[in-house]
C-alpha cells in the first residue's frame, strides 16, 4: 500500500494501512502523507487501554486517488496524558482534540480551544475513560433524585 511504502513501516489490516509510530515521528508522517495524496483527514479517535496504562490515538487519513485508508497510531502515557496538537496541519483536528480532551482528559499542547464542548457543567472525571464507573454514577446522580409524590390529603 502507498502509505506503507512512503513511511517504510506498517502493516495491512482489513484492507487499511495500520502504521504504528512513535510520538515524535507523527508530525512528519502526517505532513508526508498530506503531500502525497492523503488530502482528507477523516477523524481522530482515542482508545483507553486501561490494563496497559496508555491511551492510543489513531489519526485516520484517506487518499482519493489510491482509495486508501491509512491509520497512524501512537501511544501516550495514561497518567501523564499530554500530546502535541496537530491542528496546524489540518484545521479540523482542533475539534477532534477538543472532544477527546473532554471525553478522555487528554491535554493537547498548542490547542487554544479546549473548552467544554458537548457536556455542560460537567464536574466529574472524563466519562469515556474505562475507569469511570457509569453504573455507579447513574445510581449516585440520577437514581438518588426523588420522585415527586402528590399529597393525597391536600389534592392539587
Amino acid at each position, binding site marked *: 500500500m502507498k502509505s506503507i511504502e512512503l513511511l517504510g513501516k506498517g502493516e495491512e489490516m482489513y484492507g487499511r494501512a495500520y502504521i504504528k509510530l512513535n510520538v515524535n515521528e507523527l508530525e512528519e508522517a502526517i505532513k508526508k502523507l498530506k503531500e502525497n495524496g492523503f488530502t482528507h483527514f477523516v477523524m481522530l479517535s482515542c482508545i483507553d487501554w486501561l490494563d496497559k496504562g496508555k491511551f492510543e490515538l489513531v489519526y485516520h487519513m484517506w487518499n482519493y486517488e489510491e482509495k486508501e485508508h491509512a491509520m497512524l497510531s501512537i501511544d501516550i502515557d495514561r497518567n501523564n496524558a499530554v500530546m502535541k496538537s496537530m491542528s496546524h496541519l489540518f484545521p479540523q483536528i482542533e475539534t477532534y482534540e477538543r472532544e477527546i480532551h473532554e471525553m478522555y482528559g487528554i491535554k493537547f499542547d498548542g490547542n487554544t480551544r479546549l473548552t467544554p464542548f458537548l*457536556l455542560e457543567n460537567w464536574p*466529574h472525571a472524563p466519562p469515556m475513560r474505562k475507569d469511570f464507573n457509569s453504573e455507579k454514577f*447513574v445510581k449516585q*446522580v440520577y437514581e438518588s433524585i426523588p420522585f415527586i409524590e402528590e399529597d393525597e390529603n391536600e389534592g392539587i
Partner: protein
Amino acid sequence: MGIYHGDKMMRYEEWSKLARKASKKSLWMVHFCTGCGAVEMPPVMTSRYDMERFGIVPMATPRQADVLLITGYLTVKTLRRVIRVYEQMQSPKYVIAFGSCAINGGMYWDSYNTIKHLEKYIPVDVYIAGCMPRPEGIINAFIKLMELIDEGKARGWEKYQKYYDKYKENQRRAFNFEIKEEQKEEENEEH
C-alpha cells in the same frame, strides 16, 4: 376555583367542563423533537394517519401550544431546553412522553448523560410504552389525553405549580450532576 360560592361555583364548574370539552378538540402541539421518536411524527401528521382530523396541529412556538411531546431519550443538556419550552407554554398544558427512554431510561439505563425518569423533572400526563411507539400508539395516546382532559384528570401543570420548588430542586441536581454527601459516604463504606 375557590373564589365563587354556592350557585356561582356550580356555574363555574359547568363552564369549565364546557371549556374542557371544547379545548380537547383543538390540541396544538409544540414542534420540539428529541431522540428517535421524532421520525414517527411525520407519518402521524401527514395523510396516512392524519392527526388533524382530531384537531391536533403542530405549532411553531411554545406560547401558542397546549401539548409538549417528549419524543424519546433526553440528555441533561436537552432537558434544560425542554424545561425552558415547558415553562414558556401557557396553562393548561400537557406532556406526552414517548417510549421506554422517558419512562425509566430504556436502553440508556446506565448512560452517564441521559436522565432516567422524566417524571422527576416535569409532570407527565400520558406515557406511551414501546421502543419506539408506532403512529397508532401516538394517536391512541392523544385520544387518551383527550379523555383525561374531558374528565379533568390531566392536571400535571397544576402539580408543577404546586410542587414547583421540589421540581426545581430535582432539575438543579440533574443539571449539576450532583452527588449527595451521604451517597459518597456509602461509597467509602463499600471499599
